[in-house]
C-alpha cells in the first residue's frame, strides 16, 4: 500500500489518508487482518504532520474499518462494513449524484452513463480478483501479466 498526498485536491490531508485506506480495503489490496503501516514511519514517509496520520487512523477506527491492538499496531478489521446499511447507501448516493451531475454537464446520455458504470464494475472486479489470485497463487506471474496487459488494452479503448 503506497499512499500519496495531493495538496492540490482541496481535501483535508487526514481525509485523503482515510479515503485511500478505504479504497485499498474495498479493492482487496489490503486484506482483513493485515497490518497498516505504523503512524510514525508513515508520517515521515509522506512528510506530513504525525498528528494528521493519527487523526486519520482514529477516524478509520471510529468508522470500524481498522482496529488498534495495543502494542501490536493497526489492522484492517475482519468485517469492516460497520456502517449501517442506510448510512452506507446515503454515502454512496451522494457520490452517484455527483457523477450524474457531471455526466449531464459533459453531455453523456443516460444509457451511455449506465453502460460506463457496468464497464467500471467489471474492471474493478477484475482487479479485486487479481489481488485474491495473488494471495492464493503467488507464482502465477505469467498469467498475471497477461491479464494486466489485456486489461490495459481494454482501458485504452
Amino acid at each position: 500500500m503506497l499512499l500519496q498526498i495531493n495538496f492540490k485536491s482541496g481535501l483535508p490531508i487526514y481525509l485523503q489518508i482515510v479515503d485511500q485506506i478505504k479504497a485499498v480495503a474495498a479493492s482487496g489490496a489490503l486484506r482483513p487482518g493485515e497490518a497498516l503501516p505504523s503512524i510514525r514511519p508513515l508520517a515521515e514517509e509522506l512528510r506530513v504532520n504525525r498528528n494528521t496520520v493519527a487523526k486519520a487512523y482514529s477516524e478509520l477506527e471510529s468508522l470500524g474499518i481498522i482496529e488498534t491492538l495495543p502494542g501490536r499496531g493497526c489492522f484492517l478489521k475482519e468485517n469492516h462494513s460497520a456502517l449501517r446499511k442506510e448510512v452506507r447507501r446515503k454515502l454512496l448516493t451522494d457520490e452517484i449524484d455527483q457523477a450524474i451531475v457531471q455526466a449531464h454537464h459533459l453531455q453523456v446520455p443516460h444509457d451511455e452513463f449506465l453502460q460506463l458504470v457496468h464497464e467500471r464494475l467489471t474492471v474493478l472486479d477484475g482487479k479485486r480478483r487479481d489481488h485474491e489470485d495473488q494471495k492464493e497463487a503467488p507464482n502465477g506471474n505469467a498469467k498475471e501479466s497477461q491479464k494486466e496487459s489485456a486489461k490495459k488494452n481494454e482501458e485504452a479503448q
Partner: protein
Amino acid sequence: MNSQTNSPVNSLTPPIQIENLTYAYGSAEAVRDLNLTVRPGRCYGLFGRNGAGKTTTMRCLLNLLRPQSGSVRIFGLDPAKQEVEVKRSLSYVPDQVVFYPWMSIRETLDYLASFRPNWNREIERELLQRFGLDPAQRTGSLSKGQRTQVALIAAVCPETDLLVLDEPTSGLDPIVRREFIEAVIGAYQQGVPGHRTILVSTHLIAEFEGLIDEFTIMDRGHAVLTLDADHARERYQKIRVGFAQSMPDIDLRAALRVRRDGRDLELVVNGGGAELLERLRQHNPQTLSTESLTLEEIFVATLKS
C-alpha cells in the same frame, strides 16, 4: 523554590501568545501590531519574504529583543521576567548555527545538555546515526547542513513542549532539508504525541506543507493572512475553463486573479469557488477543471494581489 512544580503550564495554556506586538529598529518598523496564538500540539508556520518581520518576532519570543509595545507570552510566561522558566520550556534552531569550533560534536552536545534538566540520550544516539554524524568530529569542520543537524539534535533531546525553528532549512541541499523535516516529525513529534508544539518561520513553504496545521503570512511587519492550512487549500482554488465559441459575458468580480487567452480563462478564487463554478457551468463550457492552491501559491497570490 522549584520553578517546575509551580509552573503555570497546563494543557490549555497556549504555548505562544503574541498580542499587539510592535518593534522598530530606530525609525524602521519591523513588526507592527502583530497578534498570533499557537495552540498546544499544533505546527504553526510563519511565512514571509526576507525582511517581513519573522526573525524580529522570533527574537522577541526568545527575549533576544524586548517588545516596544504589546506583549509576548510563552506558556503564559513573560520571557523578559521569567527568562529561566521560558528558556527551559522551549528549544530553538536558529537560521545561523554557531558552535565553539574547537569542540567535537560529542563535547558540544554534552555542553548544551548541561544547561538542560532533561536530555534524552536514546534520541541523541538515534539522530546521530540517522544523520551519519561522527561524534568525534570537531564542529569547526562541519558543513552548514551538518551544523544544522547538530542544532536539531540539541533542540530535540531536551524534550521540550515547544520547538522554535527560524528558517531552519534555508541554504541547505534538498536531501538535508528532507531529512531535517523527517526528523522533526519522527523524533520530535513522536515524543508526546499531540502535545509537541512547533513554530517554524520559513520562506521554503512547499517543504513544510504537510507539517503545517495553521499559518500566518507576514508582509512588511503586518500579519496579512492567518488560516488553518486545510481550510486555506479548500478556499483558494484555481479554475480553468475553456469555451467552444466566444467567451460568454460572466461576472468575474469575485475572482482574485483572472487570466484570459482567446476562449480560455483561468481564475483564482478565495472562497465562493463552488458558486462561480455553477455559473460557469451554465454557459456549457467545453472544458472545466479546478484545483486547490498549495500554501506556497496562496502565499504568492496573497502578496501579489
